[in-house]
């Protein structure tokens, strides 16, 4: 149960003990809009994530965390630089990706159950069997997931009939149902109370330990990052850059109790300090 922060931030940490590179951002930058309305969302960022890694991304609001996820999933093209996912230049099809958006956008004309089954309708190999299995096996799968996150019996409800936190949990189910090789989670537990949140941490950790997908998790909760991630990247304020990239070496499976232990609290404190420094630096820069 130890923590190894890279004191001197290495721009391209070579992860070891993991598979080949799954995600690679090379000097990728994103600017939205044109002319004098242009907003630089992400300055040149380099980031390599190995196959099967669990990386948490923390940083101040508006620093470009969501933008990185959108880059990786191919929803946004880099203004400059290169994004390579699964060995190919960005292409969502390159890998089976599960994405939980920050704002749980359920399709309003579908029940929660059908919303959750959506990836099965689109992604192979499920797609070919969708018509056959949607009323049996796939539906059971969806309902099993719903039960896991505490939404049993809400499958037939429409999205607007759920509370904010319930929607967020449904959103997580949709990201998981097609057993993706890569998980992009954008603050998936933000609207949940502490206990529900901790329950879901455990579920997610189990899932990761069994299937070993590559996970990129955006969060504001340092405890969450410490509990789940094997590596934590800290970003600077807008336009974001990666400031720090630390390994988290606590043994797995981690427990909620662990998060109150001194080592863990120390990690949190260290990260906190890092972010605080970055913030005040940014404010001085701006001032």
């Amino acid at each position, binding site marked *: 149960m130890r923590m190894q922060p890279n004191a001197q931030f290495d721009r391209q940490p070579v992860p070891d003990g993991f598979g080949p590179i799954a995600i690679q951002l090379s000097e990728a930058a994103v600017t939205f809009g044109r002319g004098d309305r242009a907003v630089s969302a992400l300055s040149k960022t380099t980031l390599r994530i190995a196959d099967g890694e669990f990386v948490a991304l923390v940083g101040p609001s508006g620093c470009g965390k969501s933008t990185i996820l959108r880059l990786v999933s191919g929803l946004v093209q880099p203004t400059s630089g290169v994004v390579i996912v699964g060995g190919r230049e960005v292409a*969502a099809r390159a890998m089976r990706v599960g994405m939980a958006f920050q704002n749980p*956008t359920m*399709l309003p004309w579908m029940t929660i159950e059908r919303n959750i089954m*959506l*990836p099965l309708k689109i*992604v192979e190999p499920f797609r070919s069997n969708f018509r056959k299995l949607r009323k049996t096996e796939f539906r059971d799968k969806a309902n099993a997931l719903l039960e896991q996150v505490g939404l049993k019996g809400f499958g037939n409800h429409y999205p*607007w009939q759920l509370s904010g936190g319930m929607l967020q949990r449904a959103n997580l189910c949709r990201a998981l149902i*097609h057993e993706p090789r890569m998980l992009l989670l954008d603050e998936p537990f933000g609207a949940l109370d502490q206990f529900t949140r901790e329950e879901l941490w455990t579920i997610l950790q189990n899932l990761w330990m069994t299937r070993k997908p590559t996970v990129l998790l955006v969060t504001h909760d340092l405890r969450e990052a410490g509990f789940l991630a094997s590596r934590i990247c800290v970003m600077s304020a807008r336009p974001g850059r990666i400031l720090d990239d630390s390994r988290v070496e606590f043994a797995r499976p981690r427990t909620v109790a662990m998060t109150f232990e001194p080592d863990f609290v120390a990690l949190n404190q260290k990260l906190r300090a890092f972010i605080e420094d970055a913030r005040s630096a940014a404010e001085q820069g701006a001032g």
Partner: protein
Amino acid sequence: MFGIDVRQKAWSAGLIVLFFVAWELFCLMTGMSDLVLPRPSQVFVTLFQRFPVLWPHIVQTLATTMFGFVLGVALGVALGAVIGVSKTAYDTCYPLLIGFSSIPKVAVVPIFVLWFGSGTVPAVLTALSICFFPIVVNIATGLATTEPELEDVLKALGASKFDILWNVGLPRTMPFFFASLKVAISYAFVGAVLSETVASNRGIGNVMMTASSNFNVPLVFAGLFVLAGLGVALYAVFSLIEGRVTGWATRKNDVIAT
């Protein structure tokens, strides 16, 4: 509750009846000649008496209209999808389509007749050509205004353009598709009847033309009432489907529990 719904409908039906009563009274009070505007009661009597004669014409008009309408919907959805998705198609097709639809179809019917002879074919074509535009416009607008966030859900899964269209674009557009159907079905009737007045030996349009050249105004109006009735009947059918398909979009009243 059930009670509220029934009362609501009764209320609306009452207002509709009131409309006809007002019309009747208006004609009686102003002593309007039935050669200009017959009283609804006269029209209904005529309609009732001549119904056996009118029946085959009604069937004819309904059939051509439906045929043209179905083709028009298919064409409208296809064109709308293309225009809604591609900017070039938008810039190219809209001017042409608006140009075409600014042309009175009366001027086009004779051309159809010269090409395809009189009767059913030009009626179907006219119905089609008059009714597809509102559908195009609404489908295209619906697709163009679909929230990118909804599309992103599928894009992130690596869905094809068609997948996105089918699973997000079109469902999201449904409320406005049904809205345009209301316009389209009524215009389809107008188109079919128009063509029948110009070139056909059958159909309500033909009846109305004959009646009008006979100055049998109540019969003309009986034809109009039949058309209005058919329009409303088809609307009712679509309404049922609409309620099932687009309920999600008009959830306003369901939210407040009482």
